């Protein structure tokens, strides 16, 4: 057990892609420390699902949130104290199902958060129902005759919504993925990583992905190109597909002010309020 791992018993299925994600995250934290971001500045949240268990296993502070809401929780943490570097772990059910709207708005407002979506194409923890990422024909207990829907392409949608950092990782390529995470955390603004994560119990995609993933050397030059990349029919590009610099939400909202660290003294507040009440 390393110093980034808690005492909690790990109950992911043997062989689960979440192990690769866990390693990559720990490696990214080390990288970030080496680059001057101490781990205590990192604050995490997680959704509910197999992915969410990373909250119990990873020795970072944070908030174990609700199914589909973990990206709002970290937005709150960031708004309260912009000194925090916040990241959240979500499932594909979480981020593209229950909480898709929050993702789009976090992208729209360029909230300075990092979202890592454990995309296993299934609702793992609730025993294998189809997710918004499941392929047509996927058989799960709520679609015993096969899903009749096409999967979403969340990268394209989030790019259209204005995401300023869009990447895809693969749990089977830990080091590349660790590097992506570190860059995502460093990016100021909405950083979004979709991670291909095989679920050995309900959607074992190791072979499929091993044959399809292809590293991209550098981000696309234009958003349109990034969208095209995200929609490639033949290969699955992994790496950072898009990055651009844009003022993050908390910056536009209050510059370098910090609500909890730079609280206005009470007496001053009270004086202003009395003026407001008097109507001057």
């Amino acid at each position, binding site marked *: 057990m390393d110093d980034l791992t808690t005492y909690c018993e790990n109950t992911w299925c043997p062989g689960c892609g979440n192990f690769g994600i866990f390693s990559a995250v720990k490696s990214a934290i080390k990288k970030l420390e080496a680059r001057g971001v101490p781990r205590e500045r990192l604050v995490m949240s997680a959704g509910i699902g197999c992915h969410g268990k990373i909250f119990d296993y990873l020795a970072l502070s*944070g908030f174990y949130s*609700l199914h589909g809401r973990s990206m709002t929780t970290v*937005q*709150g943490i960031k708004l309260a104290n912009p000194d925090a570097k916040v990241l959240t772990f979500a499932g594909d059910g979480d981020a593209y199902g229950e909480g898709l709207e929050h993702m789009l708005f976090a992208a729209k407002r360029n909230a300075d958060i990092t979202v890592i979506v454990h995309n296993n194409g299934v609702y793992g923890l609730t025993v294998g129902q189809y997710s918004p990422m499941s392929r047509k024909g996927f058989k799960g207990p709520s679609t015993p005759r096969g899903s009749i829907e096409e999967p979403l392409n969340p990268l394209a949608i989030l790019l259209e919504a204005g995401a300023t950092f869009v990447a895809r990782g693969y749990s089977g390529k830990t080091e590349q993925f660790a590097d992506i995470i570190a860059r995502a955390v460093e990016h100021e603004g909405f950083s979004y990583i979709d991670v291909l994560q095989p679920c050995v119990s309900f959607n074992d995609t190791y072979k499929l992905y091993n044959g399809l993933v292809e590293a991209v050397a550098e981000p696309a030059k234009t958003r349109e190109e990034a969208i095209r990349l995200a929609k490639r029919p033949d290969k699955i590009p992994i790496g950072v597909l898009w990055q651009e610099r844009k003022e993050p939400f908390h910056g536009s909202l*209050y510059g370098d002010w910090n609500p909890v660290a730079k609280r206005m003294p009470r007496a001053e507040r009270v004086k202003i309020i009395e003026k407001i009440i008097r109507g001057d």
Partner: protein
Amino acid sequence: MDVFTFLVGGKAGEGVKKAGNAAADLLASRGLRVFQMDDYQSLIKGGHNFSVVSASMREITSHYMRANLAINLDARSYDIHRNHLAEGGIAVFNSDLVKEGEGVGMPFTSEAKRYPDPGLRVGLGAVATLAVAVGMSAEELNKFVSSAYKRGLENNLAYAAAIHGKASPLLGGKFKLEKGGKPLPMLYGNEAIALGAAAGGLDIYIAYPMTPASSILHVLASHSETLRLAVVHPENEIAVANIAIGAASAGARAMVGTSGGGFALMEEALSLAGMTETPLLCILSSRPGPSTGVPTYTEQADLKYALGQGHGEFPMPVASPGNSQEAFYLSAELLALAWRFQTPAILLTDKHTSESRMSVDIDASKAARPEPLMHSGGEYKRYLDTKDGVSPLLFYPSKELVKWNSYEHDEKGITIDAPEGIARMHDKRRRKAQTLLEYMKSQRTVNTYGDGDSVIFAYGSTTMSVLEAVRHGKLKAKVVQPIYLEPFPVWEMERYKGARSVAVEVSSTGQFATLLKEKGNIDIDKTILKYDGRPFEPAELAAQLKGAL
């Protein structure tokens, strides 16, 4: 004259509400106590709006529906309010729109047409007419308009002067109002809630607009820079509640506000706050329900709803202010309470408190302030199993691990499912509820007013109506207003057992009376209900109370 009432009616978008506001300010500036009620529909232009402003030398906590001076700016208002007159009351109608009206005709529209935006200006005509009727000189009016109608001031001054000239021979000094002492400021309930929370140390307000809570958002947004407040309006109420919870976990005193439908969307997060022990103040301002209901009117039908929110078991105080002034202090107090006990808390109010305006005498420095129990060093356990159930706080970023958890957890905040751990944390939260209960016993949880053998129970906005009815009807009765509905102050109720008791509320099923019976063990002899979207009218209520006592 004990109470002077002014009514102005007209179309939305013609400055009716603004006229009500200005009339109230005008009367307040003369040292009177004032109560203003705005009645408006869910539309932007047209329809029928009116504002009623009642003023007195004594305390006043309600408008009256019989006006001494009723000014109707259009024909529909004239038809509706022509009979809403007090004895000796005068009806003023818009002679451009109503041909053979009874009362005093004034050419509000044709006069306004001499200036740009005539529609917006007719409301000012009503204010100028009021000024005449209460004996203000043209100069006094001029001065008042200069401060109250700044936008397009020159035209406003000219128009007001013209109306003053036309009205003077007809109405000049009809109403002799005493001059009071030092003028008091006026606040809407929502202004009071917003500013009270700010005085109590609010750091961040998150909300999605919903009548009748929206103006809390508007007030705080407009003052966010001067007060150094974070104010955010995100995509929906689910985001609102969860962003607020995230912010609170990082140390920000957070508040959210909405009405019934939006509050429903926050329910999952309330339970999350219960489990994670996150301090969070929620403002629930009701309107007639169920569902979309009647957005711009009032009802107290969300009491049971507020008390039943959130699955599972956790403490959650619920309190309701009896007027604007109390709303100011109560919102700060609930914020402090939420932080003291690390719980969600609900300030329950309704359109009638939120969107009525009254004279207040507030000392902002008296607002309660959160003093949470903080970790004092050493190993940190977010859910330390203390004797009183309250665990010390430590905010991230921090060297120590701080883990908040929506799953059942151990003291460190790590997920568990073994039976002993589950029972232990249930016990911790139950002890915290007990600690909270004991604490509440030392606090003011009930207001009582007046004296008499009979007791009138009311809460929230209806307290205002009842108190005014008691004044108006000179009733001998004690008025008892539980401020806290949860924990319900049963310890304060003992003394009222056996007295003749009347409960008054704006609800069709009598939820408050049920609470008094079931929790308070009070035998309610009579319940007076109203559920047509309008608050009680004090004169009518006085008559009903007389019958019931």
